[in-house]
């Protein structure tokens, strides 16, 4: 199909690349772009190659630090004799999944059983992680309504752990059987300590994170995670897509996964079979239209950089284009979810 009307990354002159890089860097996605699209191998001008190289060096440092930090966490919690479930970025890195590539993040999300939460918090404190100062309202919010202990930051290394006992916000309006997802987690390479969600549940968790989280600027990164997870698992097992939808129904995330995969397919060309998820190409076309406007920062429409970035990606490896946060917002509105207004509306 020719949503691009024949325009591809070769239509990007060095200035357009510079603009794209600048905006991707702002969104924390330059390294992801560089790693997934193998931008170090596509013959960009030297100046841009250096930026690609620098971003890949930084991403490698993040991965190294995460693995290092996981060893510290293990040291701190091993004595409890309880399994510890790794979520999101830390899990991708520990499992060396494609979704870890170029992913810049700093927090480590772990889950322990609710009855072990207090002990785990105490052990982490002994290991040097301290809860930052929160006002009483925040403390209460966290402990009563959230699925987390307030973020704990290591006093020397400055690294942050989010300690959870569940997967999604209990206040959200959809009833999700996240307990089932946690109960059916599996050990990471035979370890009795680290656990991970099943393949299907990892995608479901990423999808619910996308749909329930208020970090709007992270939206694209989350969709990209979903895409990379889906491609990876589907390439290992042909029945993965079916199992994913079945599992989603089972735990109450059927609507969430459909919405998330629609976005991922429209934007990143995620290979979700048509029979499982009937198409909606309108949005994609609309969004590609954004990319043909002026590329000048002062005059370009907000969000055009996303379109640009996705265009490039589509051309070069994935098959994708356009925008999404609009849809994200629309979706939230339709759920009646009252998240905070994004400070940079797109």
């Amino acid at each position: 199909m020719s949503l691009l009307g024949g325009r591809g990354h070769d239509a990007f002159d060095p200035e357009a690349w510079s603009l794209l890089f600048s905006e991707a860097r702002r969104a924390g996605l330059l390294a992801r772009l560089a790693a997934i699209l193998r931008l170090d191998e596509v013959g960009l001008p030297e100046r841009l190659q250096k930026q690609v190289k620098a971003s890949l060096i930084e991403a490698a440092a993040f991965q190294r630090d995460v693995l290092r930090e996981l060893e510290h966490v293990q040291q701190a919690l091993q004595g409890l004799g309880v399994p510890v479930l790794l979520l999101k970025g830390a899990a991708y890195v520990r499992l060396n999944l494609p979704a870890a590539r170029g992913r810049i993040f700093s927090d480590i999300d772990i889950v322990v059983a609710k009855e072990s939460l207090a002990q785990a918090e105490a052990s982490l404190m002994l290991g040097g992680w301290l809860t930052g100062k929160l006002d009483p309202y925040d403390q209460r919010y966290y402990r009563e309504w959230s699925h987390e202990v307030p973020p704990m930051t290591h006093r020397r290394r400055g690294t942050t752990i989010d300690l959870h006992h569940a997967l999604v916000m209990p206040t959200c309006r959809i009833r999700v059987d996240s307990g089932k997802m946690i109960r059916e987690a599996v050990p990471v390479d035979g370890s009795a300590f680290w656990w991970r969600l099943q393949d299907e549940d990892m995608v479901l968790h990423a999808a619910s994170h996308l749909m329930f989280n208020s970090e709007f600027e992270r939206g694209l990164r989350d969709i990209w995670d979903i895409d990379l997870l889906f491609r990876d698992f589907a390439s290992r097992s042909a029945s993965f897509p079916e199992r994913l939808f079945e599992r989603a129904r089972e735990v109450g995330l059927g609507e969430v996964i459909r919405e998330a995969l629609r976005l991922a397919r429209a934007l990143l060309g995620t290979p979700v079979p048509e029979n499982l998820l009937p198409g909606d190409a309108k949005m994609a076309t609309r969004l590609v239209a954004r990319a043909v406007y002026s590329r000048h920062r002062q005059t370009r429409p907000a969000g055009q950089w996303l379109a640009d970035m996705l265009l490039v990606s589509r051309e070069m490896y994935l098959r994708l284009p356009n925008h999404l946060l609009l849809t994200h917002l629309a979706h939230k509105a339709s759920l009646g979810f009252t998240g905070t207004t994004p400070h940079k509306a797109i």
Partner: protein
Amino acid sequence: MLTLSSCTSEQLHRSLRDGSFRLYLGQLALKVSSDIPEFIAAFRQLYGDHPVTLGGGEYDFDIAISAPALWRRWLRRNASFEFSGDTPFLPMEVGHAHALFEWGLNWAIASFLHHCLIIHSAVVEWQGKGVLLSAVSGSGKSTLSAELSEQGWRLLSDELALLDSDLKLIPLARPVSLKNSSIDIIRQRHPMAVIGPLARDTHKGTVAHLKVSADAVGHNLVPAVPKLIVFPKWVENAPLRVEPVGAGQAALRLIDQAFNYSILGAEGFRRLVALVRTTEAWQIEYSSLDEARDALETLVAEHG
């Protein structure tokens, strides 16, 4: 190539407004935008010899010095440092905008150019030999590099040493940031030196910038080979002391002053070891700039 001082005021103002202005700082190309007259005036004065283009093109960093949101302007005229459209720092009053530009640029370089090992250090060159002057803030590093620059040394940077994978020092000649009493010291010693507007009461006290020589700017694409590492320390009334520093000790001190050593990991270690193995390290304690310069010239001649 066109230099900033050869642009007309109209060209410059238009180009800084419409996004077509590029400043070349050695290997770095900066897209600079601004509509703040105070900044533009200081920028013109201090970067007059730097190459620029007015026709757009590729760039490394997108920097704007601009007025923050309207409501703030009622309180006081402020300027923001925007990086890729983001404002990582609090706005400052317009009279400090040129200092904000320099600080913001240091931040951007230290935060993103990880293909280089970046060390908090001045870099100068004498008789073709690159010298790192690494010191903690307040040890007179900028004053010393300003003095050397005015005495005919080539200045590569007064703040940041960029060591690339070939162990070359990447030049970034640009205005030298002088603080408090060092402004008058340089002004008295070098009455012809071009010093930009004073920014008073910043978080670093009073700050002004020394324009670097056209020659230093002209060599901004020529990397230097490191031949000497010096840890300078200004101590009031102290007699000159020059002492060797072991390679291992020098490495630890440079790590302490490095911005991205941990990001580079093993590669940073290898680069640093290669540096201290091929480059002697010395520390000097001084109170007189003349003595310090003499000592440095002797060190370069005998050990560089």
